[in-house]
Structures are given as C-alpha cells and as structure tokens.
C-alpha cells in the first residue's frame, strides 16, 4: 500500500464506467445515453460503457484508463455494492489507487430491475444515481487500514424475543453478553401475545423457557429496568452509558415470593396488560417475569410500608 498515490490534495479526476450487465441493465436503461451524460458531469475525464465491467476485460479497461488518464476517482455504475464493491476496490488498488476512492452507483437493483416497464424514466433515474455517485466521489478521501484491539464482549439493546435470541446465540459462541432492557422484565411484546402464527402455539410457552435460559446462562448479564443514555466509540471499542432505574427493592435479597403484593392497597393500570388489568404499587408486571424482582412504582406508592412489614 505504500506505493499508493497521495491523492488528498489532488484535484479530482473521475472516471465513470457504466456496465450493461448483459441485458440486466442495458435491456432497460439506455446505456449509451447515460454514458454520454456522465461525460458532461464536472471533473469527469472519461466515461465509457462495458458489457460486463466485473469480468476480466472490464477490469483491465479500468486499470488501463487509470494509468492512461491518471484518474484518481473511479465510479462504476453497475450492480449493488454488496455484490462487487470488494472486486472493484481490489481492482483499483492493483492500479495503484487508494481503494476507498472508489464509488459504486447501483443502477441495477435500484433502477433497471425496479422499473423494467418504463425505459425512459429508468434512464433518467440512472443519470441521477450516477450524478450523485460522481458528486460523492469528488469529495472522497483516501483511507488507511490498520488494526485495533477489540473488546470481546457484546451488548444487546432490547430484551424482546429477538434480543433474547441474539443474546443466547452470542453467549453460546463464547462472548460475554450484556442484555439491556428498558422495562422491569425481559420478554417484550411476545410475552403479551396469546398465540403465535402459524402453529398457534402459546406465545409465552415458547418464550418463557428462552427467558429462563437467558437468566441461567453464565455468559449473559441482564441489565433490566435500565436506559441507554449514550453510545460512543466504534466497532470493537464501544463505550455505553447505562442508567439503572431504581426498583426500591434490594434486588439481591428479593426471592420473588410475592408476599409484599397482598398488603399493598394501591392498584394502578398495568401497561403490560394494555391497561385492561391492574397491578399493585409493588409488583412484577407478569408472573413469568425475568428477572423476578418486584418493583415499587414511586408515582403510585403512598409509602405505608405494609410491604416492608410483609417482606
């Protein structure tokens, strides 16, 4: 990578390569017209079309043009970047360019495949997409790759059924997982449902065992009744600030026996039951709650301390 050109201060010289993709693109988009249009865009020094840009001849042409015209930005208008961005990045870096100065314009999935019956409009859209890609390419800066240490821990935000399952999968892979949940119990909306499509199985019968498994897994730490205040950092090195909300019950000592619920005089609508049922000022939202720690809602508690006596 050392021999790659220093391009940050250079004036951009963009090359646009429009791909036919057989008939995938050319069958709908008028490639010649689009290429002609691309030539008229600012800082574009060459624009050409090709039957298969990803094939060897196509790549050879890109490399040749980079050398010949001293291009320092390359835009390929073809398929999705998920498909061939790595291919072209490798291709331009072989020609001595920083691979991050390559930009892809998706005129296949976003254009020709989406509008097969309106060729004129598809052509116009392809022009717009290429115009945007060229504008972005002109502003690109070359990046350097380097290695950084990684924290081998994961955090899952949201303890619904998706969060529970991801936490279990990650934990089974051997990662330490923090499962952060806003409510008092994990479970999310699935815990509220009666039956699940298409088998009409009882919803909590599927989710309940998973919830218990989460609480038993030594690799998973559930941080429930907590809010994520901020997420900073980058992949592998995140710093997350979490606020644990007070339950007014000592979590380590609570066995979840429920003796405190009966003497409590205050009943308020239970949001977990869509306000159709009530819960006491000290209670758990539902019987299968995980972790089963009772919570006092200070908005409703009258502080009679009957629960303290019962505990």
């Amino acid at each position, binding site marked *: 990578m050392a021999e790659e050109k220093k391009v940050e201060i250079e004036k951009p010289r963009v090359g646009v390569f429009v791909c036919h993709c057989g008939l995938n693109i050319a069958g709908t988009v008028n490639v010649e017209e689009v290429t002609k249009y691309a030539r008229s865009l600012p800082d574009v020094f060459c624009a050409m079309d090709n039957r298969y840009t990803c094939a060897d001849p196509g790549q050879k042409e890109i490399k040749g043009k980079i050398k010949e015209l001293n291009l320092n930005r390359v835009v390929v208008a073809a398929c999705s970047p998920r498909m061939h961005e790595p291919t072209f990045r490798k291709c331009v870096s072989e020609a001595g360019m920083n691979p991050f100065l390559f930009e892809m314009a998706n005129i296949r999935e976003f254009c020709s495949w989406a509008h097969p019956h309106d060729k004129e409009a598809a052509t116009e859209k392809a022009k717009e997409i290429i115009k945007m890609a060229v504008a972005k390419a002109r502003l690109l800066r070359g990046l350097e790759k380097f290695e950084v240490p990684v924290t081998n821990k994961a955090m899952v935000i949201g303890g619904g059924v998706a969060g529970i399952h991801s936490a279990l999968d990650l934990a089974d892979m051997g990662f330490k997982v923090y499962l952060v949940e806003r409510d008092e119990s994990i479970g999310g909306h699935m815990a509220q449902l009666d039956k699940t499509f298409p088998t009409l199985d009882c919803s909590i019968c599927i989710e309940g065992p998973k919830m218990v498994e989460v609480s038993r897994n030594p690799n998973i730490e559930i941080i429930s009744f907590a809010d994520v205040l901020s997420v900073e950092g980058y992949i592998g090195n995140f710093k997350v600030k979490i606020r644990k909300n007070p339950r007014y019950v000592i979590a380590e000592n609570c066995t979840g026996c429920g003796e405190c619920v009966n*003497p*409590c*005089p*205050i*009943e*308020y*609508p239970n949001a977990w*039951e*869509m*306000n*159709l*049922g*009530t819960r006491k000022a000290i209670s758990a939202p539902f019987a299968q709650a995980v972790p089963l720690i009772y919570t006092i809602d200070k908005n*409703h508690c*009258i*502080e*009679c*301390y*009957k629960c303290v*006596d019962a505990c």
Partner: protein
Amino acid sequence: MPLWLFKREEEGKMIIERAMYAKRFSMIFDRQKCKGCTLCRDICPREAIELKPSPKKEGEKTRHHLVDVDQKKCDFCGMCEAICLFGAVTHMTNGEPVVAVVKAESFPTLTREIAVDMAKCEKDCTKCADACPIKIVAVDPKKPEVNIERDFCPTCTWCQVACPTNAIHVRKIFNGSIKINQESCPENCVECLDVCPLNALHLGEDGKVYADDAYCIYCGACVNVCPKPEALKVYRTSIYHTPVKSGAWNKALEKLTSTQGKEREFRAKILAKATEAVKNRTA
C-alpha cells in the same frame, strides 16, 4: 392503549370512574355533603384534588370552595374518604363500597365518639335536632329517641351543648385552635362567617368576626376563602383515630397538623407500647 376514564356530574354528585376489563373503580363526591374544607386536598398523595372558588353572584353570600378531582391522577386509594369529616366521599370497586387504604390497614378511620343516653331524654324535646347545623340528628319526640347519622357527623358538639339534660356526649375528632386577627381583617369582610359549615364563627358588636373554639372542628373551609392570609389561622394539634401503623398516615398526620403533632402521636404510641410491656411483665 388509553385508559377508560369517565367524569360526570349527576344529581349534585361528581362521579369519576376508571373502567378496566374486570374491575371498575369509582369515586363519588357528594356535593351537598362537601363543605369545601382543605382536608382531602392536603393529604391526597397524588395531588389530584383541587379546590376552586365557587362563582359568586351579586348580593349573594359567599359559598364554600368546590372540589375538583383530576381523574387522570387519582389512584382510588380512598384516603380522602377516610379523612372526610362530613362523609362526602364514597369509593366503589365493582359497585361494592371499598376503601382500599383502610382495608389494607394503611390508613385509620376517624373515631367518632358519640354517646346518647336516651334514658335522660325528656319528652317533646327536639333541641339537639334543632341545634344541629347540618341536620343529621333526627328526634322522635314521642318515644323519645335520638338518631344521629354517625358516619356524617363532624363532631361539632352543638347538640351536646344544646341538650338540657346532658344526655349527649360528643368527643371532637380534631383538636386545635383557630385564631382570627381582627386587626388584619378587611373592613366589613364576613367571608369566613358565610362559609363556616358549623356556625362556629359569630359577628361581634364591632362588626368583626370572632371564632368560637367550642364548635370549631378545624376543617379549614374558612381559610380557603379568607382574602388576607395573616388574618385567619387554623392549627390542628391531634386527630382522634383508630390505631394504625403506617407511613402513609404519618405523612398525612404531619401535613394536617405539624411535625410536632406527629411527634406527639409517636410519643404517645411509644408510651402505650411501654405501658403494655410493663403490664405483660408484671402480670
């Protein structure tokens, strides 16, 4: 999902309701019985009760404040029912009268000690019934028989004083004092006199209002309407109630009386406990 909350005025009653799938909580405020005092507003843990001045018409007497309950805040705990001197509040769960805090022993009920010795009653005497300012005493002069609606009695002692044969004994629920600083009173102001539900205030010869501690129940209805806050003060020192052990009551007691009033009750409780312990040991 939104809550089903209802609020309506019906035949002099304000009804608020919280309807749920299997439970229906309701609270009924009797506007006739309510005298616009401050007790329920002072102790409401959710601060859901508000007192609003009643609209005044020209040439009419001032009327007491009107109660308004915010149905969104109310938790139907029943503290207002437990403290109401006039029995103006009723709580229902599924149509059954239930006071949640009293049922859970988180709140005491007021003790109304009213004793009538009917053997001492004279025939054709209706003095107690005539004296009652809120007309809850009924007398059958032929038998003679006295019926007092105890749940609604604010224990003002008018009947006790009026009785010629000392047949009625009433113990006040609230103890305290009422102070009117006549010098601060505005000229010709009789607002407090107009709203007093128990005629515990009277007009002096100098045109100023004087308080009568004998009949005052320290409800605070007069304080609400007094235009000068320094002119009229009501202090409560103790409340006569059933025994209870509850933080909610301690808080309410402190709000109604003072920190000293709360401490006094604590000391009395400790003393009673100690006396009992000594008794048990010696027995």
